[in-house]
């Protein structure tokens, strides 16, 4: 008996075909074949219900995307109709716009530091919280809270006052003899306060790590302990390889997210990417070009380059994953 037939038989039948109550139990498990035609109509119903979503996708996502692809080859100022300029926008990016390259450098710095920092913290906390202790549930929730607040404007504002002139961070550090400045208003430090803000929001990857940790069979650890492996060794030889698919998943997700970071920099720098362009994220510069300078063609071109770059990074990660990601369930490396 195929599993599939059994599952189909458990579907509720139309009223007319419903057996008498007494016979119901007897019929469960009997392989029946649902008529092909009916399955199609139920599929169709599914698609009908998806229409609003598809319409939204076409209207508000795909349509604008294609339009922006077209705009990237034009100079469009909002007040004037788009005018075809070929590859001029793309050429300008790499030849005569020093701020563009500045924004790329700032973004790469941010991604390269904030993503590993966030993942390492998330993994460490997850390992700590994986043990059964009193109050573990509470701690898990508490550590997750920053991520709930993270993307919001309010936290960026809080960050501003924490690291701003005469902010709390400055006061606490000066107790320890570190007389800093207004951290977010100093180009040497502004970006790093944003990195700290990102790393602090480790809740989402932490929860995923926790779920992954729970799936690692305990007997692996037991066997290793019997063989005399210490905790450090067990972590590197068992936890990390067994967790590598989850690490990989978190890495890709966080990387894509970090490239798109916008809100904190926008709020903290007042939308300018300042001081002295030190927090000029790619997205922020794109926004400035589009919505302050009204160079929508140029901004669209930037968006597509960003898409290509993120796609490339992701593809590269997938390539590299073959080397280090270990899938226990498939047995191959």
């Amino acid at each position, binding site marked *: 008996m195929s599993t599939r037939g059994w599952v189909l038989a458990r579907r509720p039948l139309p009223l007319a075909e419903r057996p008498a109550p007494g016979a119901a139990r007897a019929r469960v498990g009997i392989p029946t074949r649902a008529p092909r035609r009916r399955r199609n109509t139920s599929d169709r119903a599914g698609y009908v219900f998806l229409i609003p979503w598809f319409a939204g996708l076409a209207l*508000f*996502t795909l*349509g*604008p*995307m294609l*339009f*922006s*692809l077209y*705009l990237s080859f034009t100079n*469009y100022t*909002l*007040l*004037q109709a788009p005018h075809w300029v070929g590859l001029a926008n793309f050429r300008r990016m790499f030849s005569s716009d020093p701020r563009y390259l500045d924004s790329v450098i700032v973004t790469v710095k941010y991604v390269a530091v904030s993503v590993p920092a966030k993942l390492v913290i998330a993994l460490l906390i997850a390992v700590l919280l994986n043990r059964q202790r009193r109050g573990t549930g509470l701690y898990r929730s508490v550590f997750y809270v920053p991520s709930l607040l993270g993307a919001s404007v309010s936290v960026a504002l809080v960050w501003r006052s924490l690291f701003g*002139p005469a902010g709390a961070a400055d006061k606490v550090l000066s107790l320890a003899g570190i007389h800093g*400045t*207004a951290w977010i*208003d*100093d180009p040497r430090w502004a970006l790093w306060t944003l990195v700290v803000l990102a790393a602090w929001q480790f809740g989402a990857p932490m929860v995923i790590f926790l*779920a*992954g940790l729970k*799936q*690692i069979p305990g007997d692996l650890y037991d066997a290793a302990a019997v063989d005399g492996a210490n905790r450090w060794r067990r972590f590197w030889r068992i936890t990390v390889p*067994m967790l590598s*698919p*989850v690490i990989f*998943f978190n890495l*890709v*997700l966080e990387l*894509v*997210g970090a*490239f*798109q970071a916008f809100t904190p920099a926008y709020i903290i720098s*007042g*939308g*300018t990417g*300042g*001081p*002295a*362009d030190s927090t000029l994220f790619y*997205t922020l510069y*794109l926004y400035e070009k*589009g*919505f*302050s*300078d*009204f160079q*929508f063609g140029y*901004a*669209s071109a930037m*968006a*597509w380059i*960003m*898409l290509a770059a*993120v*796609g490339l990074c*992701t593809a590269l990660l*997938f390539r590299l994953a073959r080397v280090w990601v270990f*899938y*226990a*369930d498939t047995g191959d490396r």
Partner: protein
Amino acid sequence: MRTPRIRLPWQAALALMASVVALLAAACGSGPAASSAAAGGSGKATITFAWWGDAARAKVTLAAIRLFEKSHPDITVKTEYSPFGDYEQKINTQAAGGNMPDLVTVDRSVQNEYAQRGLLLDLDKYVPGTLNLSGLDASFVASGKTDGKQYTVPMAQNMQAIVVDVTRLKSLGVPLPKPGWTWSDLAAWAKEITTRSHGRWYGIVDPGTLWPAFNSWEIQHGKSLYANGKIAFTAADLAGFWNFTSSLRRSGAGTSAQLTATVDGLPDDEPLLKGRAVAEWDYDSLFQMYSAGTSDKLTLVSLPTVGGKTGMFAQPSMMLGVSATSKYPKQATELLNFLVNSPAAARALGTSRGLFPNLKVRQQLASSATGPAKTVYDYEAANSGDLSPTPAAPPKGDNQLLTMMQRVYQQVAFGQLSPAQAAAQFVSQAKGIIGQ
């Protein structure tokens, strides 16, 4: 074990595409035309009026509009306002969609651009029937012209000034500067404040980020920012200005680079109101807002002079224009006329935008003004004698130079560039923006 492999990351990548690109294109779609005013000509007309500013300005503006609606029962006015930073984006988006507000406030930096793009109505056909401009200063009215046609009328006049916190100044025993002072007087005066307050307060907010401050600097040196729609200042001019402001900062008279970087145009973030500085360069139209933001007594002092010239001029601002696509251009013009001429409007508006356009009404208000409003009227009256002529409306791209000034000067303040290097960089970039 569940291994979330291939699917989710690609979905995330898709989501990225969606968000990055949709962000851009969101504003580009042609919105549905506003068809609310289907009532036609005979019934009531509903017009929209848009401006930028804070809640306090909105309150007085709404009061004035209620008076207008009372005297024009067949016109309903809908209003829109937003902070200056978002305003232009909003209006441009509406203009692209063909539904710009009927009566729209236009900044002087884009006045010519809007007129030349055909977004504004030539108001000459309503003068003098619907729009009476005879009570306004002739050169003030002329500032609303583009290519000889009256596309806009300024709603307010303001003037450059140094705002000073008198309360703190007195507590230090430092005297108020006298009109006719020089920039080196200012440097010494500001240094005195910093010294006597033991660094608790800075003398003055470093004005090196301010585009209009450089404008007055150029005028008092016998030059100008623009001539014939092209840049007329040199890198040496700008380096001179920045050398002076840098000397203020280095001596401690002017605010530190970090503190200057916090200035973003919002009153809450002004070092003057946060109790970090005693003076700052600004327009007198903001004086009432500043006064409301502190319990200290503030006053206005004219700009330091060079060879007796302050470089100050009567700045027409908040240009009012009627949308070229308006269904009710006559009614919108009636509202415009009310906002620049009516004594009742003037009383309601106060000095929330600067001085009232109609001269007779302005005088009536000045004689009865009290508090901060009186300070503004007195200041304008005291300086009206020796002003420089008002420069022509700046060419397209001027607003980009305004933000670039802030950005590039930050690099000077943080020691990343010398004033000369920064000025050279600024001028070469400015030529690319203004020449376009």
